[in-house]
């Protein structure tokens, strides 16, 4: 379905459009949330909140300013980060690598859900360690660039260069 058509239907409060939105992007949005808040029950709560928000606030989406998914991603990310703060939970520290977490998640979720076989690790495979770290922290942990620089004592400029290099590589891998 085309983005304009989907947005139009959502604005008309068409539940089938929300169903479509969920079927297509629910997993991607959930992946982002899950990696920020880690706990499954919390992540599910945030996912539910996010979709209620998409349903109620679709009028605030401005298609001139970007893609629908980006708008959804921002909302989900902010909800997840708000939830972390409200629960006094901390973003994860440097010592636990993201792949460890993901494998914990995998085994936890194993009985009830199907994990996308491609997964985080292989998606980031083309990056070197420094680039991967920056992408993981910024994108999946929800750090901002300056928070990350401060927390790990990396110059902000270095964070930016690594992020940039990572994005250029990822673009080659991901966008066909």
């Amino acid at each position: 379905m085309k983005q304009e058509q989907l947005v139009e239907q959502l604005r008309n409060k068409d539940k089938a459009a929300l169903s479509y939105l969920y079927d297509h992007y629910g997993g991607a949005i959930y992946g982002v949330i899950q990696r920020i808040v880690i706990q499954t029950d919390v992540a599910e709560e945030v996912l539910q909140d996010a979709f209620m928000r998409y349903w109620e606030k679709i009028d605030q989406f401005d298609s001139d300013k970007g893609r629908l998914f980006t708008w959804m991603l921002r909302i989900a990310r902010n909800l997840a980060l708000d939830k972390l703060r409200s629960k006094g939970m901390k973003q994860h520290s440097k010592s636990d690598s993201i792949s460890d977490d993901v494998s914990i998640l995998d085994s936890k979720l194993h009985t009830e859900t199907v994990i996308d076989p491609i997964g985080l690790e292989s998606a980031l495979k083309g990056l070197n360690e420094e680039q991967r770290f920056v992408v993981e922290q910024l994108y999946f942990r929800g750090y901002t660039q300056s928070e990350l620089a401060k927390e790990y004592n990396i110059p902000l400029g270095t964070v930016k260069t690594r992020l940039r290099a990572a994005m250029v590589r990822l673009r080659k891998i991901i966008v066909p």
Partner: protein
Amino acid sequence: MNMKEWMESGIIEAYILGDLSEVEVREVEDMAQRYPDVQKEINETEMTLEGLAMKTAISPGQDIKDRIFQQLGQRTEEITLPDESATSKSEEASTKEYTIAPERTQTVKLWKYWSAAASLLLVGATVLAIYYRQQWHSTESELEDYLTENQNITQEYQALRSDYEQLQGQQEIFANPSFTQVKLNAIDTSSSYYAVIYWNAESEEVYLNPAGLPAPESGKQYQLWAIVDGKPQNAGIFDIENQLLDMQQIQNASAFAITLEPEGGSENPTMEAMYVLGEV
């Protein structure tokens, strides 16, 4: 700061993730409006992050979707409730009108019955119309669900099919006796790096399985070399991928080696950066 530096400053990524202040957001949107290059960069970064999210999707629990729609149902009921009370009020008002003038002639009374019967009929017809309309709506949304499901299945099928075709291609290489398998072993014997070459000396085809190599440092790329008549010959640069790579054709190779070179590859191999080597 020039435009290129500005675009590469990480501000676009932060904009997309919603990590900027309002002032900075306006700055980015202003630049995007003025410069098509900036808009293009934003679009491509959006696509990249979207693709990354899609590739790293995790399926949520089965019941979450139901929970969302339940919550949705509750909220819409809250909205429609006042509407219903409004209609019943207006009905009250109309029945009142009938009772205002009770003492009239027989004909008026008869007319009253007829109109009451007609209103009843109208109410009945309306109820039926609403009922069928709802039925029709739910059928329509069911149909949409099926269409969506169908689309999902088609996509999954296509993904599986392309995986299958890829595997089939690899299988043909493995099964073809004209291909010689060459294992490239680590130069640094303390590491367990390796790579495997499948070389067809007749057709000169070279395939490489790079799965046993580490991810390269930034700004570097691996390069495959064939040793032909004692001299290294370029057989192509490559990135680590989870599949068999089709490399450049090679004649009369006596050995293959892989080195790590600056991005874009080198004319001659950097011997100190040789990772794996294997003789045919």
